[in-house]
């Protein structure tokens, strides 16, 4: 092992204001740091030498970083919740700034202050809930279409029909659906305790359809926690319910709105902890996990089959590939959770058909799993996780991580002798980076099984993988100051960058 020479670079900021790093997130070959005390963000591009920094002014208020799905982890929305104002200052509303490695892409100002921002699954919408201020109407939600510039209809406000004082907690959004009247239909589903409200995004002023989650008029029903649009249906999972609600969209017969709904429920054996939609059958199938069983439903006919599970699972991955003794590539599922086993299901062409089920016991209990369905593997880590990597402290003498081959149904353990303090998976899921507390960094190439070891002069506090073709990983030595070493596969002379914040 040779210690790579240290190369240190100072980023000359030339009279910049003080920067207190409050939030950090990766961008494509870049780093985003946010200082919500001074209402400023910095994008630091690390693919250039020296690194290049772009500053972005933010509105006042506590900031939240919301990665944008579907962007390949290249875009992040910076949400600031606004301020209350004082006798000397006007109140400042919440704001959304979309950034990428080049800096600011777009900006939207919301109609008032909000505390919570969440992103739709497809990354098109950011919605803000929990309005705050001196007097608020708590059922208001503000929705930003990130594909459209700011304007009178963007953001748009939705008002939940509160039946008993409940407030919206989360939302789900549909893609534009072909609709009989010719114009695509886009729906937003707002969740609140005991109900689900459906809004036409193109007619936000039209009254919503409010769907209760119980027929019991004497109590508030369970709260929806997850919903998935499947063609022209919406499948809803509630927090404590053993039934799934299926909302079928139909054309409305009156002029008040463009859609109406029909309801049905799918029963499960217990509280449903996770759902997934699998489109690899003749018609979509719905997979639902309870504590002891997995249910597979044909959404079209509501026919159901179920398999008893050896352990409670919470995650579902659909993949295609062979299996031991079965070289045919088939649609399969793997289920896992915080238990020392996995369960595999082999599915048939018919939606509710389960051809086989088998369990794979593990010699360890994973705490975090990174799924790579395309490559047919799971990366399982033992130990806590935090932003920017996995904390596997106390790993000496055991397996801090394991590569589980879904095709071969085997687990390759990565053991360690000294403690491993941090671990991370590269953005393309092909490398595992591990840092021990003494300055050594190791890389394990999952595909080739090759290993690399580097010595960095300073101990590593955390590892942050960056998206991008170079598969860079930043090894932070002093996080608040922004001091790090840029690592890349095969790079034996990594660059050290100091003090970017």
């Amino acid at each position, binding site marked *: 092992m040779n210690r790579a020479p240290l190369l240190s670079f100072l980023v000359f900021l030339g009279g910049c204001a003080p920067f207190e790093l409050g939030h950090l997130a990766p961008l494509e070959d870049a780093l985003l740091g946010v200082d919500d005390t001074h209402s400023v963000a910095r994008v630091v591009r690390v693919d250039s030498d020296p690194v290049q920094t772009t500053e972005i002014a933010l509105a006042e208020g506590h900031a939240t970083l919301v990665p944008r799905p579907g962007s390949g982890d290249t875009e992040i929305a910076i949400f600031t919740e606004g301020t209350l104002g004082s006798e000397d200052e006007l109140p400042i509303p919440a704001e959304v700034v979309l950034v990428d490695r080049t800096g600011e892409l777009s900006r939207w100002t919301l109609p008032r202050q909000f505390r919570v921002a969440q992103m739709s699954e497809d990354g098109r919408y950011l919605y803000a809930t929990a309005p705050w201020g001196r007097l608020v109407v708590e059922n208001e939600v503000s929705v930003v279409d990130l594909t459209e510039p700011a304007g009178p209809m963007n953001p748009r406000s939705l008002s939940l029909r509160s039946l008993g004082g409940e407030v919206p907690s989360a939302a789900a959004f549909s893609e534009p659906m072909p609709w009989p009247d010719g114009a695509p239909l886009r729906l937003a589903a707002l969740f609140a305790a005991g109900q689900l409200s459906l809004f036409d995004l193109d007619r936000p002023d039209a009254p919503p359809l409010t769907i209760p989650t119980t027929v019991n008029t004497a109590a508030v029903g369970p709260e929806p926690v997850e919903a998935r649009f499947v063609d022209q249906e919406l499948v809803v999972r509630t927090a404590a319910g053993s039934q799934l609600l299926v909302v079928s969209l139909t054309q409305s017969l009156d002029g008040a709105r463009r859609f109406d709904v*029909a309801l*049905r*429920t799918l029963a499960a054996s217990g509280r449903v902890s996770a759902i997934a939609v699998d489109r690899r059958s003749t018609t979509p199938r719905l997979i639902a996990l309870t504590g002891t069983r997995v249910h597979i439903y044909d959404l079209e006919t509501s*026919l159901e089959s179920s398999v008893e599970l050896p352990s409670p699972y919470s995650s579902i991955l659909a993949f295609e590939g062979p299996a031991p003794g079965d070289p045919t590539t088939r649609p399969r599922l793997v289920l896992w959770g915080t238990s020392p086993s996995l369960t595999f299901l082999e599915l048939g062409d018919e939606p509710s058909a389960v051809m086989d089920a088998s369990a794979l016991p593990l010699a360890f209990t994973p705490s975090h799993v990174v799924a790579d369905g395309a490559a047919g593997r799971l990366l399982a880590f033992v130990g806590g996780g935090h932003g920017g990597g996995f904390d596997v402290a106390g790993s000496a003498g055991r397996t801090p991580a394991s590569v589980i081959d879904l095709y071969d149904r085997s687990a390759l353990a990565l053991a360690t002798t000294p403690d491993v303090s941090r671990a991370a998976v590269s953005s393309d899921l092909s490398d595992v980076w591990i840092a021990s507390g003494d300055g050594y960094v190791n890389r394990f190439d999952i595909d080739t099984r090759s290993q690399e070891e580097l010595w960095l002069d300073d101990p590593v506090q955390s590892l942050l993988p960056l998206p991008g073709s170079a598969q860079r990983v930043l090894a932070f030595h002093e996080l608040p100051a922004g001091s790090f070493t840029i690592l890349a596969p095969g790079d034996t002379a990594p660059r050290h960058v100091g003090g970017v914040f």
Partner: protein
Amino acid sequence: MGEMWNRVPLGVAALCFSIAACGGEGGSPYFGIDAGAPPPEGFGRSDASVGPPEMEVDIQFEPPAVGATVLYATNRAAGRVAVIHADDFSIETVRVGVDPAPAIAAPGRDVALSLQRGESTVSVLHTMGANTTVTTVPIEHDVNTAAFDPTGRYAVLYEAARPPEERRNFHDVSVLDLEDAETPVARFVVGYGPSHVAFDPAGARAFVVTEDGICTLDLARGAADPVRAPLLGFDTIFPIEEAHVSADGRYAVALVEGTQVRQLDLADGTLTSADLTVLSMDGEVTVTDLDLAPSGTEVLAVVRSHEVIARLPLGPTLSDPTAWITLSLVGHGVGSLAFSGTGDRVVGYTTDPSIESITVLDLALNEGRRILLRKSVRALRVSSDGAFALALHHAVTEEGTTEDALVDEAQGYSIIDLATGFSRLALAEAAPRPDGVVLDDASGHLLLALRDDATGVRELQLVDLASFAVDRVPLLAPPTTVGIFPALDRAFIGQEADGGRVTFYTWGSGETHTVAGFELAARIRR
């Protein structure tokens, strides 16, 4: 009034027929009737213990909310009824009144009544094709029960005793013309505490059985002020606990004061009385069951204290002991009777937990035989064609761990082929409920819904009546009711689920189809 009967020694007055106990005594299990033979020596009051009281439990094969092709599922809290079409599984939801009781369907028709306790109204639901219309009619009194005449045109509405519900209406009855909602409801005042209603075959008259006697209603009376229905009593100051009306509407019979069989001629009010104490040398008898034979020609009384069944002919000879036929059932332990729909097969049984047998009687041939079971009976019903009987068993705590002891302790039921005596015992994880059973003679299946919330049992058991094979179908939600749609070759299982849930089972293909969430749909706010 009926003539008084003087006690006559049985050897002179009665024809005796003995039924020998089968099994350990050898010989043919069948027995014959010796007409005119003197009674066995020593016949008189039996020293046999009468045993524990008979607990009559009626096994319901026809859930009340099932029409010809639809199921009416009531959501009481929402004041709505979901009409579930069993042919295409479509669902309509219609609004009825406040606090509706479960809907009651007219047998074999897609017409149902929803009785609103909160508003004193009745909603009539007519389902034709894909649509259900609702007509609400005001009722001037509380109702919780409806009886339908054989033609299906009229419904008689009243309040029956339904403990623990508080009963508030003890005398008022209304008649609704289901074919003409414009016809005002005809209101009658009847005797105290109506318990059930019988009809004459033409559907012209209804007979309301009350604690005071029988009241006759003219169903076609139509609009008029309330009237007091003529009451025919049984000449007793004691409340009539049970009375039966013959199928032709000619007679009503009741057991009065524990030993007297009283027969009312409903045409002219003639009362005839038969004193069953004549069957005992010391004048004391215990009668545990009194039933009209479906043939309509006789009434059967189980005199358990003397282990005999007395067959009394309906009509003017009821009171004449010489016209009676007594069947000795010594050693059989019979306390109750169950009849086939055709009436030619009667099964005697007892709910005494110490007795594990039934006795099959064929009234046409006056023959019968005892069938030993593996467990004691708590309820029994005979199929309408008399081919099968379903016995629900006791679960009796036994000492020891022998197979017999374990069997006795388990819940279960038996299907008995009454022709051959073959019985199949099916043990169950939960006690089969009398209202959780459907016997479908046409398709040859029996359905039982099993439920035990404490242990999580949720199961449907399907019995093939040809082979007696039992299939178990686990359910995702606790079953509440089962029923059949004979015309559609389909059965259904209602289940307890937030939002409603019904699973349909097609006999031929074994396919299931579940509709669920329909009650939730009724609460959507638009």
